[in-house]
């Protein structure tokens, strides 16, 4: 029995979610191998070899693997899939894109966003945006899993010394091609990976006010900015900032909700945060029922005050 982890990387380094996925793979029992499929990705493969608990790194290198196209990466995984009892992907945009493709080609189920490994065939995963936890048993020979990073500790990134083996890269599928990307260039951490998130709601009143009030707080805390659906629907914040059932599911160390009432679908997206702070002038706001620290105050006064107090 051994497990294969598909590394999330940028060819130069390994992304953090890979480390949590290695921990989940170790919990499944057996050896853990890591596949680094990329282009000019020797540095990423070398970094993967350092992860504690990894016994082998398989490095496939080709320009067809440069941008993580689902068709090509899935084929690369399928070429070695038969050797493994478990195939694990981080539950990131990239992992979620490829994992079901692999599972379907193997004619096995896929289990999404596991948060716990109970036994090699039994896993826990949130359903209904985390409003219920399902314990599921997979009857297929190969378990294809995506791993929610917030459910597992990160494996140590250095200290290991796995062998790196080269694998032949497969030919490009010819079905899709990468045309470009726009990666947000700000220094702010990514919403789903941020340790601290400051989030604004409808009470901000306008896009200008949203920026004026929330940005200094985010800057001061080195935080990502989130928003409630109400704030997004009103046009105060971009859609990709939306935290909630139909937006991003987050679980930072600290979540500061400013002027967010706490609708069910918002709570679903952030209630696994370690510490929740709510600033709201309505004492009856449901957000206070999940907040560790509630401050009943006008956010236009309290937030600037908070910025200068930090």
């Amino acid at each position, binding site marked *: 029995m051994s497990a294969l982890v598909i590394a999330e990387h940028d060819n130069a380094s390994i992304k953090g979610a890979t480390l949590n996925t290695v921990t989940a793979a170790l919990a499944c029992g057996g050896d853990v191998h890591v596949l680094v499929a990329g282009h000019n990705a020797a540095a990423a493969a070398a970094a993967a070899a350092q992860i504690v608990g990894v016994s082998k790194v398989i490095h496939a290198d080709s320009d067809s693997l440069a941008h993580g*196209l*689902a068709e090509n990466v899935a084929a690369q995984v399928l070429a070695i899939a038969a050797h493994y009892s478990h195939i694990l992907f981080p539950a*990131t*945009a*990239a992992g*979620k*894109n*490829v*994992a*079901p*493709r692999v*599972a*379907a080609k193997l*004619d096995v*189920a*896929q289990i999404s966003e596991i948060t716990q490994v109970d036994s090699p065939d039994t896993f826990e995963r*949130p*359903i*209904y945006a985390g*409003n*219920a*936890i*399902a*314990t*599921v*048993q*997979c*009857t*297929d020979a190969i378990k294809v899993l995506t791993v929610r990073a917030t459910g597992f500790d990160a494996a140590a990134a250095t200290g290991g010394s796995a062998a790196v083996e080269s694998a032949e890269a497969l030919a490009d*599928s010819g079905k*899709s091609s990468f*045309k*470009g*990307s*726009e*990666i*947000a260039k700000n220094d702010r951490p*990514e919403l789903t*990976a941020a340790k*601290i998130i400051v989030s604004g709601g409808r009470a901000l009143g306008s896009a200008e006010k949203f920026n004026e009030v929330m940005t200094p707080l985010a800057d001061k*805390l080195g935080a990502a900015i989130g928003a409630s659906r109400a704030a997004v629907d009103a046009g105060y914040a971009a*859609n*990709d900032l*939306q935290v909630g059932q*139909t937006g991003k599911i987050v679980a930072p160390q*600290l979540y500061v909700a400013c002027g967010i009432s706490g609708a069910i679908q918002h709570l679903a997206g952030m*209630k696994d945060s370690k*510490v929740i*702070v709510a600033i709201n002038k309505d004492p009856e706001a449901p957000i*206070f029922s*999940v*907040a*560790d*620290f*509630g*401050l009943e105050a006008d956010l236009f006064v309290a937030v600037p*005050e*908070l910025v200068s*107090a*930090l």
Partner: protein
Amino acid sequence: MKILVPVKRVVDYNVKVRVKSDGTGVDIANVKMSMNPFDEIAIEEAVRLREKGVASEVIAVSCGVTQCQETLRTAMAIGADRGILVETPADLDLQPLAVAKLLKALFDKEQPGLMILGKQAIDDDCNQTGQMLAALADVSQATFASKIEIADGKASVTREIDGGLEILSITLPAVVTTDLRLNEPRYVTLPNIMKAKKKQLDIFKPEDLGVDVTPRIKTLKVSEPAKRSAGIKVADVATLVDKLKNVAKVI
């Protein structure tokens, strides 16, 4: 070009689901059911492509219980031209791989140029069916789309990825799954609801399509998530900062 759009009937996103006391699942008896929000976006996009003259026909498909016909009528009220229900028994746990196989059978039958799916359903939160369908049909895929442009047998799709956007060019036929920013679905009007009632709706069984829908995953237990312990209210900003620094130790 035909566009196939699968739609799922799920618990309405405004409903707070309750876990059944016997731990067998969540209680969905007498709960409001609606179309999965991401699927609504998928239907809207397909209808817009037809309105632009890119597509000739939009076919909505639903797999599940007989009440999914209501979901299909909603899809047709938004503008889908006809509907297909693959009806399964109420006691069957219909899982993404099985749905993908049913859709693959319909792909073979209808030969659509494009299949647009919601990126995930808000009940099981799987985020699998589109990618599985693409794999089984052996076509290209672009998931989490925020923009779709069709020209010369290809789709240019802008995808929402972690940290930003990515643009792919994929050869048709293909699968695209929708993210929230793709469009804002139109409101369904009464005349369109009336019109939808007259549109064609075909019903198949999985056996008709030669698909085995046996579940591969067994749900052993469904439980409540760990409850958050009740917090405290703080009097002012200074106390809040003190608590965060010295009690919670998060800043």
